[in-house]
């Protein structure tokens, strides 16, 4: 399909896409420089990097799962009130009256479980491929923080159905925090917004789960991907960082 020249050269078009479409080297560079997505993604990818045994696509799968979770999470937010008797009733509404509500809930639940597993596997893959070595050591640190954020997202989401499982899991979890000397009790107080797992805790966990943690994870994922590119592309099995450096 070819767009008419007049459209491509129009002022409106050029204000959105600054470079032209002619296949010049300059335009190719501009396409990368000026695109948000391609800016994170390397301009060139070696065919070998796409082989399954190189990465098992674990990072990409995590990213896709995160996208699914964001989309279904937003839809779930339409049906959910973070208040004490209502939260559990909303689960029941999803189960019994919302069209495909259970499906929607499960589309959030299973990818959430999967994401935790996949992110772990991703970390193991990076570890066994020795991809944490310089120059990728900082990206490894970001990755560890991302793993923590994933676990925190999973944990905060656990409270939201407000059933017995949720209540006791969070009671146990926050009591474990309390066991920490000195800092334990104030951190628990901060997490729960009080001394009991109640309405305040639910609201805090809701805001953490739906706003703070996803924003943090989005920012760090962007940084993570960008660093992959900057640190020499995807690392594969049996390659140490240093021997690879010249090839990037």
């Amino acid at each position, binding site marked *: 399909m070819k767009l008419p020249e007049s459209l491509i050269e129009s002022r409106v078009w050029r204000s959105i896409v600054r470079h032209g479409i002619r296949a010049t080297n300059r335009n190719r560079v501009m396409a990368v420089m000026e695109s948000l997505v391609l800016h994170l993604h390397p301009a060139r990818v070696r*065919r070998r990097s*796409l*082989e399954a045994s190189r990465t098992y696509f674990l990072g990409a799968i995590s990213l896709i799962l995160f996208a699914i979770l964001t989309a279904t999470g937003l839809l779930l937010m339409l049906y959910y009130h973070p208040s004490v*008797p*209502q939260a559990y*009733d909303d689960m*029941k*509404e999803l*189960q*019994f*009256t919302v*069209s*495909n509500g*259970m*499906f929607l809930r499960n589309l959030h639940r299973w990818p959430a479980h999967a994401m935790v597993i996949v992110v772990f596997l991703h970390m193991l893959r990076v570890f066994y491929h020795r991809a944490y070595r310089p120059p990728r050591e900082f990206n490894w640190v970001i990755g560890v923080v991302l793993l923590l954020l994933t676990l925190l997202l999973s944990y905060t989401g656990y409270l939201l159905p407000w059933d*017995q499982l949720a209540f006791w899991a969070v009671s146990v979890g926050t009591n474990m925090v309390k066991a920490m000397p000195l800092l334990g009790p104030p951190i628990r107080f901060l997490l729960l917004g009080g001394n009991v797992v109640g309405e305040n805790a639910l609201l805090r966990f809701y805001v953490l789960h739906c706003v703070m943690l996803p924003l943090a994870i989005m920012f760090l994922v962007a940084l993570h991907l960008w660093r992959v590119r900057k640190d020499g592309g995807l690392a594969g099995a049996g390659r140490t960082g240093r021997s690879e450096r010249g090839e990037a």
Partner: protein
Amino acid sequence: MSATGPSSHRLWLWFSVSSVVFLVVLAVSPIKDYFREYRRYQNEYRERLLHSAVSLKQLKQARASAVGVRQIWLPALDNHVDRCVSCHLGVEEPRMAGAPEPFRPHPRTPHTPGDLDRFGCVACHQGQGRATTVAEAHGRVRDWRSPILPVRYTEAACGRCHLGDTVPEASLLSEGRTLMTRVGCFGCHKVAGHEVWKSEAPDLAGLSQKTHPAWLAAWIRSPRSLRPSTWMPDFQLTAGEIDSVVAFLWSRPPRADLDLDSDSVAVVSKGDADRGKLLFSVSRCISCHTVEGKGNGSAPELSGVGSKVTRRWLVAFLADPQRFYPDTKMPRYGFSARDAADLADYMLQEFTDSSAPAPAPGLHSADRVVQAGEAIFRRAGCNGCHQIGGQSNGAAIGPELTGIADKPVGRLDFGRRSDLPRALPDWLAAKVTNPRSFRDGLKMPRFGFTEHETEALTMALLSMGRAPVPVAYQVPVREAAYTPPGRFGELVRRYRCMSCHQIGGTGGDLSTAPLTAEGSKVRESWLADYLRLPTTVRPILEERMIPLQMPDEQRAFIASFAENVLRDDRIPGEIFPAAPAPEEVERGRKLFHERYGCQACHMIGGKGGYYGPLLDGAGQRLKTGWIYSWLKGPQRWRADAREPDYGLDDADARALTAYVASIPPLTPPHGAATSAKPAIRPGVARERQP
């Protein structure tokens, strides 16, 4: 990117296969959504509506009914959402009578039809209101807190809003609640709202003045074999434990305020048993007590009492029971010391129990045994019901029962009882019947409840919800109980009028005559005379007003108080300023005998039924305003009145009143006033003698 090479092909293949798989998976959910259970029921109901339509309007309505979730939303009742009506579609549709479940209309109850949009379904039946599938809605799924109540226990739900002991039209629940109070559940179990429970069990101070140790031991061993009607349970103690408890109780000091050895009443010498027998029947003791099971049963059985109590104690007790037990229901008769001695000797002679142990001399036990006995006394929870000298340590040795009705089945301890269905009602019934069958070392004694009592108690327990219903739904216990004031109050307390009679809704239910509007009902002169010698008003009743032997001045005071204070302003005084016209009386007579057949229940001149009150001399007893008001709607004045409401118009009611008021007395009132003996009435002859 080029699309050649084996890895690309493989990727494309993966992509296509997984896309198809995802598509299929995605289709499952909408399909399941489409085939929800309630759709089938709604379609079937629609067919039934179409078939039963008898008018064009009904046909149009049936055609217009769309398939979809239906619900009753109750923001005021804890935000309940009951979707039961998505399948139970005919609950309010009389045309569905005879249809199978889930279409048939709800049976008639005090709240249905009519209050469905106030209570919904779950408030009474439990289950899961929000659910739209059969298993989930009925709560028959794992871990749902309140599965649907079996229909025989639905009454229990009435008790979540109706907080009083007596719940109208829920007889089994009311029975269960009354039973709980009587048998002493609250002595050991804490229940919110029953903190101020008062036990009917006697205070054990002064026990050594009242009975003898052998009798006490036999009693503790098996209370029911000495008195089948007692609520004292069998604690299943060993012989050694019983001896220790007896030793402990015997070691308590005697009551200092009851010095029976020098009491002027108690030391009266030998009485006249024959006179005592006469007194026993004239005083109508079996209006409350039973003798070998005969009698009313609201007070203890007397047949074994001669083997139980000491003579001194009995004589002093009969003279003034309230000195012994300040909260007793027994009135204080005006017995003289001689009366009491005669009555006591008759009872000691007549009411002996051959199976009871013979009196043994006093008991002196080692301190060690006494201490062991005290430990058992507390451990077994005896002090939950029995005080000793007004001291109670509030045993509360049982688990709290507040919210027992909402306890999830997963948290019940079934112990050894693998035979029981895993359901709360069955668990409760088994706990009540045989509490120690669950595991060893449990403390709850055995009450020996009948099957009916067990069901009633289970019902009462199932009504004890965890959280109170919203205030707007609560039917509270009457706030302030009526307390009779002043001198009237003193007399009411002395004669324990309210053990049997109700005033302002407070008091016992033994008497069929509440005194709330007594002054609007009866004539002052009749009342004063009646209190001197109560005669039979209702021949059918075994329980009769007892002759309290009041001094004249007290009778006159009570009659005058009733006349002036116990009034209901809705009841007119006299409706005939002059005597009624003879024609009106005659018309009333015809209405009475021919139109309404009142003689089927009421007796006049020894003829007629004996179900209702005698009407001889009704005009001397009742005020015409009362007769008239009563006839216009008996249930207005007593909800449980048996007299039918004929819906009389004013003229008929007036005529009947005129006739009833004109019925002459059997014996002229002047004659009765001068006669010292009780007048022989048809009912008196029927009274059973012990």
